[in-house]
């Protein structure tokens, strides 16, 4: 399994719960992505979470856009999946972590998938790399036949 990340934070809560937990988890909601309507539900839920976290309008827009890209990837390439929205806090700073998981075919070449202009679907090929730029922390866990999990976090005012 290959992994890539651009993060200066410890993983707060890996799916297994093993990683060092430096952030307090305030709230968690899990949303299934099986239909196109679910993509809208996810967007609304992420928007509501950014409002609760007190994000600026630009940060709200960044996070909702990233969530839209990642959820669409899971829907189109992964055959559906789940989006977990975690509300975090560390040292009084609010954060929002999105975990987008699917059991699809996985990504063979993660460098290519993160590069602009790479697409195997209907988009513009900016989804994965673009979502990474919109978030502060970004991890991609995938491999052939292993599905794809993206863990992306944005902190307020950073």
């Amino acid at each position, binding site marked *: 399994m290959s992994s890539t990340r651009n993060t200066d934070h410890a993983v707060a809560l890996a799916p297994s719960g093993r990683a060092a937990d430096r952030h307090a988890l305030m709230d968690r909601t899990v949303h299934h992505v099986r239909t*196109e*309507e679910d*993509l*809208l539900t996810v*967007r609304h839920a992420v*928007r509501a979470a950014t409002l609760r976290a007190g994000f600026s*309008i*630009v940060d*709200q*827009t*960044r996070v*909702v*856009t990233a969530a*839209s*890209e990642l959820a*669409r990837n899971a829907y189109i390439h992964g055959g559906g999946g789940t989006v977990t929205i975690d509300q975090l806090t560390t040292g009084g700073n609010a954060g929002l972590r999105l975990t987008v998981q699917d059991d699809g075919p996985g990504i063979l070449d993660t460098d290519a998938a993160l590069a*602009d202009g790479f697409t195997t679907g*209907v*988009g*513009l*090929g*900016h*989804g994965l*790399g*673009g*979502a990474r*730029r*919109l978030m502060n922390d970004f991890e991609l866990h995938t491999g052939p036949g292993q599905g794809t999990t993206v863990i992306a976090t944005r902190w307020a005012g950073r």
Partner: protein
Amino acid sequence: MTTPVSGSVPILRLGDVLVTGLLNELDDKTAVAFTEELTSRITADGARGVLIDISRLEIVDSFVARTLMELTTMARLLGARVIVAGMRPPVAITLVELGLQLTGVETALNAEQGMAAMGWRQSPQPSGGGLGEFHPEH
């Protein structure tokens, strides 16, 4: 009058300009239906310009961006000029960070300026009612 597709606003005709917009909840099916309706209206109405107001859009992701770029290209192939108007500032910031510049898509700050670029001007007479008046420039 054409029945509006859900997710889009009705397509109005003002002179040789079609005026329409996108709502926040654009999905694949709506985008396809909207594209088909707009292109057929360009032909049926002999439109030379299309103003697409996107001021309601809270986000523009790569899917919506692709839809706008394709609409612009299709309209151009039919001889009509598209102006996308009213993008919210956070959407512009996010689009650039996403790596999308809407290349080839003409934009305007708002619908009024977009219509002005199409040759429409606000009527200078106070008694004019204010909806604007067509001043062909070509």
